[in-house]
C-alpha cells in the first residue's frame, strides 16, 4: 500500500508492522489518518535534541545507588547459594569485570527432562567432581613410595562413573605415574626410579584435586521447580560445555557472567544480560529505575563490539576529549600521552566546556543562529 511506503522512512519498522497488522481490513483513508496520528505520537515520544540523556541516566542510577550503600541487603540469601546482590553486584556489572564474584547459571532443560526425569542424576552429572569427593581413603605406602586410594562405591555410583573411568581419568591427568587397579584399591606409583617419600606426599595432595567427571567450574548444583518445569541452578559457570549437552534447552539457558556471554553468544546477548542483571538488582531492592536508562548504559558498554566497563580502562579511555579523560582519574597520564601524539581537543562535550567556562553544548547551549548575509 502506498500509505505505508510514505511512512517507511519516518516510523520504525516494528511500529509500522504493528499498524499494518491492526489496520488490515480498514479503508485507505482511515489507515492514512491512523498513520498520521501514530506519526504524531511517535514524534512526541522522541527525545528532544540537546537533551542530556547520558547524564540523566547516570543520575537516575546513581541516586538509588547512594541509597543502596545504606541498605544492609547486600548479602541476602541462603548460605548454600550465596549470590552477590545490591551495590557490589551493580559495580561489578558496570565495571565489566572479567572474573565476577559469584558466577551462576540457570540451566533450562528440554522435555522430558524439564518434567523432572532423572533430574537429580542429571544435576549431579553436571557438577564438577574431584577425586577427593569420591574416595573414602588415601594413603602413602612408605615401602614402595606409592599412593593407595580406596574409592567410595556409593558416591562413584551417584555420579554415574565407574572405577574404570576413574582410572582412565587418573591416567590421563596424573602425568609421570603408573596407575594400577587392584580389587578395590587404585595404586599410583611415580615412574621416576628414585623412591622419594617426600615426592609421594606431594603427589598425594595433587591427586586429590584431580578432575573426574562433570562440567568444569560448576561447583554446586541445585535442581528447582520454576513454574511448572524443573531447572538446574548452578554455582559456577561454564556456558560452552553446558550448551553442548543434549538435555539442555540452549535457547533459554543463561549465566550471570556477562563476559562469558559476550564471548560465547556475542555482544547483543551481552547487552541484554547487562540490562537484565542490573534491573534485577534494582528491583530486588524495591527501587524503581526506568529501563531506558539502563539500556543506554548497556549500549554505552557494548556499542564498540566488545564489552567495556565504565572505568578508566573502559569507556572513559574512549572519550574523544583529552581534558574530559584527564578530569576522570589519572590526569597526568592522559595529558602526557596526549602531548606525545599532539592530540587536539575539539571541545565538543560537557566537561571540557565547564573547565573553560564556556556554554556546554546541551540544551540552551546547543542551538546556533543561521542567517543569510547579504
Amino acid at each position, binding site marked *: 500500500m502506498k500509505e505505508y511506503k510514505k511512512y517507511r522512512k519516518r516510523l520504525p519498522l516494528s511500529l509500522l508492522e504493528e499498524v499494518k497488522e491492526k489496520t488490515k481490513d480498514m479503508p485507505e483513508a482511515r489507515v492514512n489518518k491512523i498513520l498520521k496520528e501514530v506519526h504524531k505520537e511517535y514524534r512526541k515520544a522522541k527525545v528532544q535534541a*540537546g*537533551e*542530556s540523556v547520558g*547524564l*540523566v541516566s*547516570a*543520575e537516575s542510577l546513581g541516586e538509588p545507588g547512594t541509597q543502596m550503600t545504606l541498605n544492609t541487603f547486600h548479602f541476602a540469601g541462603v548460605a548454600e547459594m550465596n549470590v552477590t546482590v545490591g551495590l557490589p553486584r551493580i559495580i561489578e556489572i558496570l565495571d565489566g569485570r572479567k572474573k565476577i564474584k559469584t558466577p551462576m547459571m540457570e540451566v533450562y532443560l528440554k522435555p522430558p527432562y524439564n518434567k523432572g526425569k532423572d533430574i537429580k542424576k542429571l544435576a549431579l552429572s553436571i557438577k564438577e567432581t574431584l577425586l577427593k569427593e569420591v574416595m573414602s581413603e588415601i594413603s602413602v605406602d612408605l615401602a614402595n613410595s606409592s599412593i593407595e586410594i580406596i574409592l567410595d562405591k556409593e558416591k562413584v555410583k551417584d555420579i554415574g562413573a565407574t572405577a574404570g573411568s576413574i582410572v582412565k581419568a587418573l591416567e590421563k591427568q596424573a602425568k609421570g605415574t603408573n596407575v594400577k587397579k587392584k580389587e578395590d584399591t587404585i595404586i599410583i606409583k611415580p615412574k621416576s626410579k628414585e623412591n622419594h617419600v617426600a615426592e609421594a606426599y606431594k603427589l598425594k595432595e595433587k591427586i586429590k584435586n584431580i578432575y573426574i567427571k562433570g562440567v568444569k567450574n560448576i561447583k554446586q548444583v541445585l535442581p528447582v521447580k520454576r513454574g511448572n518445569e524443573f531447572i538446574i541452578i548452578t554455582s559456577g559457570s561454564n556456558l560452552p560445555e553446558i550448551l553442548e549437552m543434549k538435555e539442555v534447552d540452549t535457547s533459554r539457558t543463561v549465566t550471570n557472567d556477562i563476559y562469558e556471554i559476550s564471548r560465547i553468544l556475542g555482544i547483543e546477548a551481552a547487552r541484554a544480560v547487562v540490562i537484565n542483571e542490573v534491573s534485577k538488582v534494582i528491583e530486588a531492592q524495591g527501587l524503581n529505575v526506568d529501563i531506558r536508562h539502563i539500556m543506554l548504559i548497556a549500549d554505552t558498554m557494548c556499542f564498540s563490539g566488545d564489552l567495556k566497563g565504565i572505568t578508566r580502562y573502559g569507556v572513559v579511555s574512549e572519550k574523544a576529549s583529552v581534558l574530559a579523560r584527564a578530569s576522570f582519574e589519572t590526569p*597526568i597520564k592522559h*595529558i*602526557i600521552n*596526549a*602531548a606525545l601524539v599532539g592530540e*587536539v581537543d575539539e571541545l565538543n562535550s*560537557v566537561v571540557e566546556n*565547564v*573547565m*573553560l*567556562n*564556556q*556554554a*556546554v*553544548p*546541551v*540544551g*540552551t*547551549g*546547543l542551538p*546556533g*543562529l543561521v542567517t543569510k548575509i547579504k
Partner: protein
Amino acid sequence: MSEVYLNSKYIGDVEEPSLFIDQFKTERRKGSLSNNVNIFYNDLDNNVYIESSKGRARRPLIVVKDGIPLLTEKHLEQLEKGELSWVDLVNQGIIEYLDAAEEENAYIAFTEKDLKAEHTHLEITPYSMFGLVASLVPYANFTPAARVNMGSKNQRQAIGFYASNYLVRMDMDVNLLHNPQVPIVKSSMSDIYMDEKHPAGQNIVVAVMSNDGYNMEDAIVISKSSLERGFGRSTYYRPSTAEEMRYSGGLVDEISVPDKEVKGYKSEEDYRLLENDGIVYPEAKVEEDDVVIGKTSPPRFLSSMDEYNLAAATRRESSISMAHGEKGVIDFVMLTENEEGNKLVQVRVRDQRIPEIGDKFTSRHGQKGVIGLIVPETDMPFSASGIKPDLIFSPHGVPSRMTISHLIELIGGKVGALSGRQIDGTTFHSEPEAELRKELLSLGFKENGTETLYNGKTGEEYNVKIYVGNMYYMKLKHMVANKLHARARGPIQLLTRQPTEGRAKEGGLRLGEMEKDTFVAHGASLLLKERFDSDKTVVPVCEKCGLIAIHDEYKNTKYCPICGDDVDITNIEVSYAFKLILDEFKSLCVYPKLQLKNKY
C-alpha cells in the same frame, strides 16, 4: 594446678586456683593487699591472671556474702551523719573495684531484690550503667536507649553557668545563661553533681500542639514575652589576644594606634575606639571590622640592602579587629606579660544573645529543635486560668521517636510546679507516673494533663484538649548569630581567583560537581556558564603559537613573548582556573596550543 601471671608475666603455679583466689580476695578486702589489684581466673586456659597495671577501667560494686550485701543500714546512717566516708567503705572491703577481667568471675545482682545466694556483688545503683549526663535524663527507663543517648549529648551542649569565676577568666567561646534554674523534675544524679551550683536550663510551660505550621519538622514556637522576661537569654564571650613579639635584629611589634604611614592602614573610622595606649576602652560598642587592639609590626623581609631603601622601612599594620559578622561590647581589658616576657594584651568582647528564629533549644530527651516563630504573647493560646505556654512543641516529634519520658516529665513538671516541690525522676526508681496523675487530679487539674485552651488570635476554644505542663528546657550553644552566612561578592583566593572558602573568610557557597550536573541535566547551559564565571578573565592569545600573549597597559599594545608583535592577537574569555592549568601544562613540558575559531 594452674599457672599464675602477674601483669602478663609468669610468676609461678598454684595447686588449687579457687582456694588461692579466695584467699587473695580476702586479703585484699582486709586491706593487707592493695585494693588496686585485681585477680581473674580464666577457665578456658585454667590460668590465674593478676593485674596491677595502669589503664584498666574499673568500677565500684558492693560486696555480697551468702546473698547478703555487706553494706548495711547502719553504714548508711553513719554515711549520712558523716562518720563514714567512701574511702572507709573501700578500705573495709564493703565496696570493691572490679576491672573488666575480674568482672567475668563475678555474679552481680542488678537490684537488692534480685539477690540470691550465688551472687558475689551488688550494683550500687541500677543507673550506674549510665554516664553522668545520661543519668540526668529523667524517667530515662521509659524511653529508647538511642534517645537517652541523644538527650545526654544535647545536654552537654546546653548553655548554663559553667564557673562562678567567669569574670576573671579568659576562656575562648564562652556562653553564659542569664537566669539559670534548677530542674523541677530532677534525678538523684542532680544532687550528686550539685545541680544547684551550675544549672543549665529553665523551667517553662510547654504546650504540645501545632501552631500554624511554624513548629513542623522539629521547630518550636516561643512566646515573645517569655523571651522578654529572660527565657533563654545568654551572653557570649570571646577574647582577642595581641602580643608584642620580638624579631631578630632588635625589631619588636608595637601596640599603639597605628600611624597613617603604616603599610595596610585601614581607615580612621576603624581606629576610633582606641585610646592612647592603642587598646579599646571597656564598655565600647564594637561592630565588625572595628580595631580592638592597634598593633604594628616591622617590615617582613628586611634584607641588608633595604637599610638604605626608605620606602621599605615602613612598618606593617597588624591590628586585631572584630571578625566578620561579629559585634558586641568590650567587657574586660587585661594587660600582662607572657612566659617570654613579651607584653600581652587580652580584650574580652561580650555580646548579649536574645533567642531569635533559628536558635536551638532542647528538652532532656533528645527532642531538640530550632525556633520557627516568635509569637507575641497576645497571640499565644491560653487556658481558662490565664496560663499561656512559653513554648509550643509539635506532637509529631513523639510517635516515631517514642520519647515517653518527655511526656512524663511534662506531667511531673506540672505537679512539681503546682505543689511547690521537686519531683524525683531518677531512672529505675522515679516517682510513679500513676501517683503523679493522682496528685495532679487532687490539685484540681485533669488527671491526664490536658487542658482546654483557647486560640490566642480568635479567642475560640480549641476542639481538642491540649497537653500542657512544665518542662526543663535548655538553650544549646548553636546559635544562628554564629552561623548565618551569605555572600554576593567578596574576597577571592590569590592563586585561582576563585572565591574563598568558609564563613570566617566571607567565602562563597560552592556549587559542586553534582549540583553542576543538575544544571546540565536541565539543559540550562547558559545559566550554568553564568554561575561558574566567578573567576572569569579575558586573556590575549597569540593566533600563531597558541599561547597566552601579553597586553602592555602603558602602550596599549599586545605582543607575543615568542612570536613578537607582528602576529594576530585575540582576546578570549575563559575561567582563570583554565589559564592556570595551561601554565601548569607548560611546567610539565606540555605545549598547550590554543587554536582559535570564531564561535559564530
